[in-house]
């Protein structure tokens, strides 16, 4: 067991996937000699050769569209979109083909491909480098959307994604890339589609994923000073959502706050809050609250601290849940 970063865990997952299955191939812009702009593919081209890990022309639709053809021929492509907002040129391929080919061919052709996308803000990136685009992917039937919040999950969920018979959009929270964790690899933290309780509590449930999990846990610690004992759920997979884990928790606590840095209007929290309301209405002591980014384009880096939901905003939302009504 040693201290490793999420970036290293992802790199190890890719290395192990390349080693274990000759059908696994990696490609994208700058992932070869450079090892990716975040070094997630560091050393893989050297170790496995440039037919297993290779640079493509700078063309995101081509990266994803050719991955479709490669998967049709039996490979298991793992492609990198360099930054969240760089993935948009590939959107037609994603929506019209990646998400639908199994359905269009009535099961004859499934696409076991993984699309890695570093996403989210908090690293001082200039515009087009900090988007949280997950709702577009969540809103597309046929896709699986995964986002880890720990190094262990980064390794395990990426291995599970590459092994999946269906296309996975694997969102890497870039501000967590360099966080260290005591971890022995390999590790298996469970199947796709399963949320996990990161902190047990009784007064309210914070529901978060990816970069917001750390903030939610910090808020839960701060809330303890107010005498509020908060449960924190890390969704890990956004599509399909683990309603069972979320609803079991909310039925116990009676209160829920969804936390994410993507915008709020028609954002992921809207879907989650609606599902909680539909399923847990008679257990709720207060409306489901959302703490999200503002409904604005992601701001310039000097302003992002004002945009990103922090501990205080979460605590304000928690405070609004009429705490005095809670039985002891």
């Amino acid at each position: 067991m040693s201290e490793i970063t999420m970036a290293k865990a992802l790199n190890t997952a890719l290395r192990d996937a390349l080693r274990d299955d000759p059908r696994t191939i990696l490609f994208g812009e700058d992932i070869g000699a450079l090892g990716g702009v975040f070094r997630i593919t560091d050393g893989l081209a050297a170790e496995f050769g440039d037919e297993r890990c290779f640079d493509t022309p700078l063309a995101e639709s081509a990266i994803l569209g050719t991955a479709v053809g490669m998967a049709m021929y039996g490979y298991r492509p793992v492609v990198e979109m360099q930054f969240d907002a760089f993935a948009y040129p590939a959107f037609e391929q994603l929506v019209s083909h990646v998400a639908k080919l199994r359905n269009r061919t009535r099961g004859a052709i499934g696409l076991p491909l993984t699309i890695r996308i570093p996403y989210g803000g908090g690293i001082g990136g200039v515009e087009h480098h900090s988007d949280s685009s997950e709702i577009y992917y969540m809103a597309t039937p046929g896709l699986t959307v995964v986002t880890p919040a720990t190094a262990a999950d980064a390794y395990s969920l990426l291995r599970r994604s590459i092994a999946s018979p269906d296309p996975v959009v694997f969102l890497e929270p870039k501000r967590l890339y360099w966080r260290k964790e005591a971890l022995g690899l390999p590790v298996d933290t469970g199947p796709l589609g399963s949320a996990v309780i990161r902190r047990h509590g009784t007064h309210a449930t914070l529901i978060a994923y990816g970069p917001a999990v750390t903030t939610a846990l910090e808020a839960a610690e701060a809330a303890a000073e107010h005498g509020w004992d908060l449960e924190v759920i890390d969704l890990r997979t956004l599509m399909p959502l683990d309603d069972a884990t979320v609803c079991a928790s909310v039925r116990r606590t009676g209160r829920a706050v969804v936390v994410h840095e993507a915008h709020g209007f028609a954002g992921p929290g809207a879907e989650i809050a609606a599902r909680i309301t539909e399923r847990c209405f008679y257990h709720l002591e207060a409306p489901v609250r959302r703490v999200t980014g503002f409904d604005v384009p992601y701001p310039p880096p000097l302003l992002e601290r004002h945009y990103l939901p922090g501990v205080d905003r979460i605590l304000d939302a928690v405070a609004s849940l009429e705490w005095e009504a809670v039985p002891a």
Partner: protein
Amino acid sequence: MTVLEAATAAPAPAGPVTAGPVTAAPAAAAPAAAGVPPDRQLLMYRAMVVGRAFNRQATAFSRQGRLAVYPSSRGQEACQVGSALAVRPTDWLFPTYRESVALLTRGIDPVQVLTLFRGDQHCGYDPVTEHTAPQCTPLATQCLHAAGLADAARMAGDPIVALAYIGDGATSEGDFHEALNYAAVRRAPVVFLVQNNQYAISVPLAKQTAARTLADKAAGYGMPGVRIDGNDVLQVYRAVHDAAERARAGHGPTLIEAVTYRIDAHTNADDDTRYRPAGEADVWAAQDPVDRLERDLLAAGVLDRAAADGIAAAADAFAGELSARFSAPPTGDPMQMFRHVYHHLPPHLREQSERLAAELAADGQGD
């Protein structure tokens, strides 16, 4: 279906590998027959006559309301038959919605070819066993699938070529450019066949591109561009065959522009009198690919009138059989909506499928 089964069973002849230059205009048609045996020319003729009958019958279906829509390829039979016969059955086709005749020529059941347009299934045939991707509706997107599959075959060391079909309008799409660039850089064994039928729905070629020819575009990607007479099946056959063998030999992709004309409207929903000058179709009618091959084969003695009449009768019988099979209503299973979205049915889809099953049971349509 015997005509088409025979067509697809014939082996592709060996031919010289040539990297064709960009030509300013379609090459002269006269020597096109060279290198293609008479029985194979006859096969092409049969397939084109059947294809013409298929276009006629499918258009009739659309007028009868038995198809939601039909994009006819009448006038483009030489492009579709010549290209489909020029590659091996193990090579992959990446067709658009207008490639019905190419699919027929490949040997795919005509009812399965039409399921997309009938509206009961997105893709009626099995793409894996037919080595044919689903007919693609978004423009040029399948060029990238072709490039990826071809590149995968190259990496695997398999002698497989991908043949990507597009129209002239699709050459303006980003995916067309990304696919050509990718395929050229990776030396992927792909043949990009543009059927320049002069219109993208209503927009004429002059408003589509400022390039001298569509074949000229190949130069920008570092691959050969070949411009051929798309109404001459033998030119199409030879150009696609040569490009495919060139690709198979490791020399990378080729862009072929086949100059042709779409006789019918874009689909039955289109009014082509709004955008086509009067008399234009008459000029092209003189170049009709089916009539032209028939004249050439009659002149060469490969075909006689009695044989031609026999083929015409067989094509009519083929259309009649298709019509009879089509009179049976499609048997769409509503539950299939959920069956192939994911490999494993996720919980929310299980809930929704149970709800639909209950609705169907209440309506007396359940099991």
